[in-house]
């Protein structure tokens, strides 16, 4: 990045570090922090919407809908989320490609599972082989967001279900006395009052979401944990900037990043709680 970085071997320590910490690899490391923030910003609203839908479904009159949404909301309490993150992306990927295979290549009647390979015709692959790398990256990231949304949507469903039940019965009775139908009761009475009770659970959910973002690493995405491990390992002179094993420092910096993120979220959520006059 700087002009004096062309020959690192002759630099003094401070210059060496300023060149080392701004080389191309480190820039990618810094960009991956943005990936984490992007994941949080995209997953949170999607998980809330999914959770709200599931919570309303739990109260529905149809037995099947109730059963499915109740199972969905409770299944994350029984299975570690890491198993979902390892399982869901493969499943959804295969499901989408299978559907596209059936639609786009109806003439190919062989089974898609041939021995060990999962074969679909090349027009059915998603993303296409010829797409540029950024589309592949974006697709992988979207699958990750989808997995996180499904898992945290279930947690949110539990929270919203509890919050909806905490709205005092008298409110709902008054609504019924006024002759409101179910949809009007939901939109005018339950939803506005539910947020007050849902807020502690939702702030807990946000904290949980922050703490599960390193699992992106297990989904094969080049996130902060991948770069910390890659950059920290000892490097021989085949590299421009050889150095011994510095993994401790890289992982400690990740720790500090997460502590900062948690502290800022805590302060922000406290402010929001105060607005609702809730005990913090």
């Amino acid at each position, binding site marked *: 990045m700087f002009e004096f970085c062309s020959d690192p071997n002759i630099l003094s320590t401070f210059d060496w570090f300023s060149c080392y910490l701004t080389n191309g690899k480190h820039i990618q490391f810094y960009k991956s922090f943005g990936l984490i923030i992007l994941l949080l910003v995209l997953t949170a609203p999607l998980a809330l919407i999914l959770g709200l839908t599931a919570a309303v479904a739990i109260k529905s009159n149809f037995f099947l809908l109730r059963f499915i949404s109740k199972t969905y909301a409770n299944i994350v*309490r*029984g*299975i*570690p*989320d*890491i*198993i979902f993150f*390892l*399982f869901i992306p*493969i*499943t959804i990927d295969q499901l989408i490609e299978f559907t596209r295979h059936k639609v786009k290549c109806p003439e190919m009647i062989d089974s898609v599972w041939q021995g*060990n390979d999962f074969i679909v015709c090349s027009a059915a692959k998603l993303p296409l082989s010829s797409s540029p790398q950024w589309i592949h990256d974006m697709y992988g990231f979207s699958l990750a967001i989808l997995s996180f949304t499904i898992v945290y949507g279930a947690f949110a469903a539990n929270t919203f279900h509890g919050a909806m039940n905490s709205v005092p019965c008298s409110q709902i009775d008054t609504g019924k006395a006024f002759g409101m139908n179910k949809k009007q009761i939901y939109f005018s009475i339950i939803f506005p009052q539910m947020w007050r009770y849902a807020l502690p659970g939702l702030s807990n959910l946000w904290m949980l979401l*922050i*703490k*599960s*973002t*390193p*699992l992106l*690493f*297990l989904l094969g995405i080049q996130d902060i*944990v991948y770069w*910390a*491990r890659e950059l920290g390992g000892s490097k021989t002179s085949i590299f421009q900037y050889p150095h011994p094993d510095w*993994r*401790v420092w890289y*992982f*400690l910096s*990740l*720790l500090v990043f*997460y*502590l900062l993120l*948690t*502290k800022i979220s805590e302060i922000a959520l406290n402010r929001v709680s105060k607005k609702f006059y809730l005990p913090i």
Partner: protein
Amino acid sequence: MICENTIQLYSLRSIGIGEKLLPKSDITLCDQFVLIGSGIIWNIYFCIIALSLGFIFAISTAIIRNNKYPFISKAIEIYVFVFRGSPLFIQFFCAYELFVLLPKVGIDINLIFTTVTFQTGWLTKAWLGALLVLFLNTTAYSSEIFYGALKSIPKQDIDAANAFGLSNWRKYRKIIVPTMLRNSWASYTNEAIFLFHATTLVFFSSFPAWSQSGDALYYASYFADKTFNPFIPYPIIAAYFISITLLIILIFKIINVYFNKHLPRERKSSIRFLSNYIR
């Protein structure tokens, strides 16, 4: 008996007893069930030890924090913030890298009858290093839960205890700690479940698997990689985890009943058969 041969070979494989080489080809359903089941031993080991030690230390740290001693309360607050504010996954990585830098010495501990040499090299092994991290993590979370419950004990109870002239130890043993536990039991059950689920992360962070002995998820992903079919090992491990989670919830419910014994309960009306005709 079904799977008898596999059970003989692999049921204790995760602790090193049994067939040394893992199945590489012709992997049967038996292999998967038994090997993943043997991996659960590690998860249960981590959960029980970390939870029991963490329980004791969490109560102590919560009480110390509540009494606001000069330096130690602040130190505990910082410790709780660090371990609650960062992901467990990153804590595993940091701890492993730190342990790996420790000088490899043996520290002799005199246990009166024998002298045990504690090797610092053991800290980089999963059975001790990862256990330490899990213990510190669960202590921090439980300490926060118990601290919140301690603050919500009604002041009248403590005043009454003081008026009765109860000594400090009796006050804590009979009044404060039972009330604190009763108030926080629901959240603590949640924390226990999270801890059990978090034990799957150990072998996915930097702790290496010695002689291919790992936990349930280590074997599940081994099978998923070897058979290219994730639709069998992952549901198997999910089933194991659901059953054990239900067991944990049951145990904690029973303990909850024990805590609430002194409170008036709803009397379940006994069913009276033909009560109109038979008195």
